[in-house]
């Protein structure tokens, strides 16, 4: 077994090489960053168009929605930046190249995910932070030290929830050939997380709170800063939820890895 410190050092080594390799394609980086930026702007544009017609959505104003969306952009960035290789999993599994990850004395999930570091995701993170600052100023949110600590904690938990959902969905490829729709659905669900969960009724709200807890990616944690009086006490358990979900995802991954038989090629 290696120590976490060794893994961290290894991670930096791998990513430094990866980034050096990617820098050959400077134009690609610029165009991808533009793509990332445009896709972040698109949702804001949609909000803006909706709020051009109505004063609020379920009582939430445009600026509050911008805050939730900024929180969301920051919270999904770790998944985008560190776990982007999840998207390639089904190609590796189907074409047999996944076998290579069995041959190193490293944690397999670490080794597999470290092979990609999504530089363009940094654009999203930066845009999210700028947007969060902007919305905080507009909404007169007073960032005390305690609140900042709370922000770090909730972002960390939200990021784990998002990572778990995507990685678990990508693992479907170990059992079904055409797993893309599973990942596609997980990806689409992600787009619903910046909306107030209070618009949903019954089964939907239950699912998004307890089963596939996308509510914890942006809306519930944002409530803590926007309307602390309305917040459900559940939110204080979000670190446990985040880590618990990640543990389940890791278990699914291990199951999948152990059941993989290769393609024989």
């Amino acid at each position, binding site marked *: 077994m290696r120590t976490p410190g060794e893994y961290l050092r290894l991670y930096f080594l791998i990513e430094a090489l990866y980034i050096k390799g990617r820098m050959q394609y400077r134009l690609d980086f610029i165009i991808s960053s533009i793509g990332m930026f445009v896709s972040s702007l698109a949702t804001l544009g949609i909000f803006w168009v909706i709020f051009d017609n109505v004063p609020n959505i379920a009582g939430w104003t445009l600026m509050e929605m911008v805050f939730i969306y900024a929180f969301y952009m920051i919270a999904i960035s770790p998944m985008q930046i560190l776990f982007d290789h999840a998207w390639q999993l089904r190609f590796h599994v189907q074409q047999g190249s996944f076998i290579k990850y069995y041959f190193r004395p490293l944690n397999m999930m670490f080794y597999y995910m470290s092979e990609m570091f999504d530089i363009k995701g940094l654009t999203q993170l930066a845009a999210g932070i700028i947007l969060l600052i902007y919305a905080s100023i507009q909404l007169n949110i007073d960032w005390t030290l305690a609140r900042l600590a709370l922000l770090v904690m909730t972002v960390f938990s939200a990021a784990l929830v998002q990572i778990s959902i995507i990685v678990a969905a990508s693992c479907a490829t170990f059992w079904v050939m055409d797993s893309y729709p599973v990942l596609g*659905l997980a990806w689409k669900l992600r787009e619903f997380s910046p909306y107030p969960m209070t618009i949903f009724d019954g089964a939907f709200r239950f699912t998004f709170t307890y089963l596939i807890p996308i509510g914890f990616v942006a809306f519930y944690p944002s409530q803590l800063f926007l309307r602390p009086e309305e917040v459900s006490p559940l939110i204080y358990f979000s670190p446990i939820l985040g880590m618990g979900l990640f543990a389940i995802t890791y278990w699914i991954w291990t199951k999948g890895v152990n059941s993989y038989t290769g393609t024989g090629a």
Partner: protein
Amino acid sequence: MRGYLAVVRATYMIGLVYRFGFLFSIFGNIIYLGVAYFLWRSIYQHSETIRGLTFNETFIYIGLGSAMFILLKTYIDWILHYEIREGIIATYLIKPINLGLYMLSGGLGSLLMSLTAITLPTILLLTFVFKVEFTRGPGLILFPLSLLMAFLISFHIDFFIGLLGFYTDSVWGFGTTKDIIVTVFSGALIPLQFFPDAIRNILLWLPFQAIYHTPLMMVTKPDQAWDILLPMLSVQFLWVVVLFAATQLFYNQAIKVLRIGGG
């Protein structure tokens, strides 16, 4: 011609092999419809109609729009780019086929697949689960034709982006930017009526509105006069012709820069 029909048929059959994906897509679409239902219901809390659209009409628009989104997503840009990068493109160029037509046939095959797998179930869901009422009118007759032209416009835009693969390796950036521009400016996510007037007037001059807005309007407001519906269809046709010409010109240029190292 028979060769191309075989491609259409083969792509359709490939779709049939992946039954799990097929069923899961329907499941995914139900969830999406549910979410869209709640979201738009809360937007419509404030008034019965917004910009001349009732909740019922907007929900048909959004629901069918999401089904059309899967229908029109041919992934031709990604496929073409992959085949250029890997050199697979050479195997097409030595055959007596037209690459554009070949790709179009593949796209048509998956279109037919999604039509049976996604669009029809969505219409059934809208009718029986969400109990929306479809208005009757001449627009409904024009819808299939309008949908076909929307497919051709979408295909040519994707093909054009895919051809960029001859020049650059950055298909992710181009593809994503194109996808976002198409979905927002075409009215795939929000009916164009909701946009502020100044912006809507610009959007109506762009080809994107002919992909989602036109066919979806044929279904949500089918009881309009022929002299409103037919010009909408003509604009679509015009865009098909313009984009076809543009991709042909670009293809003839792009094919010249192709270099394949061995094989």
